């Protein structure tokens, strides 16, 4: 694993979500060597947790499959999973990143047969399903996980479970002596694609996410639709497992709010419009979705989607930021209280389930960011000359949807390539001479 050969001609991509994968592949397909570092045990990031994309309503697994194929065919990308960048020193054209690799306890002999998971007893909240279900202490992160290898939870190491897993493995793939490693990776340029996290919904006190089981977030709702997800693809209420036929969506849950995130998270309007179609997909005319909003932000082709959803007889729109939610103790129904802006009518509306269209915040907070870059007041990395050869991609740079993240990542890859080319031209080693010739040939 430590046989990574990296030079100042290498581009380091931090984060293996859709943005990081895109940046790594674009750079590699341009002939650059790339080290791709992913914190989780598998690539894919938040996109792998989505059921459908807006506005075309196709499945992200399809795009993920294409990217994984590109990656498998690409010898220039060196992938490190369960790995985190904990420090970066140096300047543009000559960086050294310290990468910490957590032990996976499973080597590359793993065939993903799943025998280890069968014998392990300990269970943990499944991160992939935002804790809505449990996974074993030996697990495949998700069905499409790449690398397609199991992982042992560090909590079972030293227990009988670990021994049972080792005994069950017929391929000698489990290595309980694996240790944490730290390595130095050289790079000429860095693409920082660490993505986003959903804002902590419990902080929005009046909505009672921490008190009422039938108040969930949009990312959790998304997992419910996955046929392999925590509810087997059914929209069920967490409190009693009843079908959630009447779903309320609350927009700007944590976004555009100086008490929480000051910025607009950009994706939530379209996400809720998309998710309102899930209710229709599941219950047809029996389903009902109500979207509570300040204003709907959908432009261009997104506006066409909005118009289409608005025409639906099963989707209602209420122009109002919900003031508070209470719970009917007997039924577990959440009741939404507020005043609408079109006529100032006071309402107390009962629904089966409330989905908070939760805001997006950078997954690496400003104060723990291991690189020296300019960060704006919302925590996103600014495009700035003082950042040198470090470029943010995707949601590390701003609240972006997948489409715009991919565009943004491609642009960042191009900027990183420019740094590498300049470095190559300045240093007359063999690679540099080659690059110089290439530049000369291009005129």
């Amino acid at each position, binding site marked *: 694993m430590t046989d990574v050969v990296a030079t100042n001609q290498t581009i380091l991509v931090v984060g293996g979500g859709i943005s990081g994968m895109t940046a790594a592949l674009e750079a590699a397909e341009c002939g650059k060597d790339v080290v791709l570092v992913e914190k989780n045990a598998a690539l894919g990031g938040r996109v792998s947790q989505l059921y459908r994309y807006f506005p075309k309503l196709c499945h992200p697994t399809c795009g993920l499959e294409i990217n994984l194929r590109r990656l498998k065919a690409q010898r220039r990308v060196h992938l490190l999973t369960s790995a985190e960048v904990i420090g970066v020193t140096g300047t543009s054209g000559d960086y050294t990143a310290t990468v910490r690799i957590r032990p996976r306890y499973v080597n590359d002999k793993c065939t993903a047969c799943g025998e280890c998971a069968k014998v392990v007893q300990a269970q943990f909240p499944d991160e992939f399903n935002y804790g809505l279900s449990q996974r074993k202490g030996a697990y495949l992160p998700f069905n499409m996980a790449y690398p397609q290898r199991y992982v042992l939870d560090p909590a079972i190491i030293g227990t009988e479970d670990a021994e049972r897993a080792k005994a069950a493995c017929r391929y000698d793939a489990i290595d309980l002596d694996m240790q944490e490693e730290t390595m130095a990776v050289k790079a000429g340029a860095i693409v920082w694609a660490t993505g986003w996290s959903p804002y902590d919904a419990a902080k929005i006190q009046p909505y009672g996410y921490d008190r009422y089981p039938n108040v969930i977030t949009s990312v959790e709702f998304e997992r419910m639709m996955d046929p392999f997800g925590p509810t087997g693809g059914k929209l069920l209420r967490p409190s009693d497992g009843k079908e959630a036929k009447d779903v309320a969506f609350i927009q*700007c849950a944590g976004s555009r*709010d*100086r008490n929480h995130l000051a910025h607009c998270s950009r994706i939530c309007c379209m996400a809720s419009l998309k998710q309102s179609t899930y209710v229709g997909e599941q219950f047809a005319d029996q389903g009902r979705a109500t979207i509570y909003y*300040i204003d709907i932000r959908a432009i261009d082709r997104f506006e066409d989607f909005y118009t289409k959803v608005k025409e639906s007889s099963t989707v209602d729109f209420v122009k*109002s930021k919900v*003031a508070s939610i209470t719970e009917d103790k007997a039924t577990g129904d959440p009741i939404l*209280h*507020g*005043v609408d802006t079109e006529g*100032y009518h006071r309402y107390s509306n009962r629904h089966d389930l409330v989905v908070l269209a939760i805001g997006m915040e950078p997954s690496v907070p400003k104060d723990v960011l291991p690189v020296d870059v300019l960060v704006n007041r919302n925590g996103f990395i600014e495009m700035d000359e003082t950042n040198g050869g470090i470029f943010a991609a995707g949601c590390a740079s701003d609240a972006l949807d997948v489409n715009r993240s991919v565009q943004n990542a491609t642009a960042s890859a191009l900027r990183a390539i420019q740094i590498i080319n300049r470095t190559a031209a300045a240093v007359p080693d063999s690679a540099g001479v080659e690059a110089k010739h290439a530049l000369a040939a291009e005129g």
Partner: protein
Amino acid sequence: MDDLNLAMRDRYRNNFLQEVEANVEEGEWAKMCMQCGVCSGSCPFGPHWDHPPQEIFMMIRANKREEVLSSTSMWLCTSCYNCIVRCPREIPITHIMHGLASYAQRLGLAPKEQPTRKFGLMFWDNIEKNGRVNESILGIKLYFMNGFKEGVKTAYKMAPVGWNMLRTKRFNPFALIPFLHKRCKKRSDIQAILRKAQQIENARTVRFGTAGG
């Protein structure tokens, strides 16, 4: 901003919005409201308001001067601060409501029979005369705020409470007798301070025409 933009901005900032910005405490925030409605939905007295805060902000921007200033709405604010805490733009709504009420009072447009206003005036009168609050007199006046008959009824109803307060020395009956109750020393100084404050406030008030203008 170039001149054209400034000119357009001024057209949108109608007279009443400018008046609120100039003369009402924290009034410059009125234009920041994005009409989300959280304040109205969070107000415990919300159902009793003619116009909830969100609507008041919109009315200010729609130049509805008379309707806003003569409204009873902002007099219902109990300063619970729910709206300020929840406002996504951190608009000091409570302060603006009190600011509007007090501005309406200064202009003589406040609703005459609004009980909060009546009590406020009584409180002010009491403090101005004595240099401190005489709670006994203020309490009795409050009983008789709605006429003699009502006052006797209320006093009778409250007698047991008064008796208990008397026993535990929380109430001094001598404070009800003129010239015997405690006033602050040199209350003429306090009155001078209040007059000066009034003067400063009057000087700072920008004159605006009446509605529409």
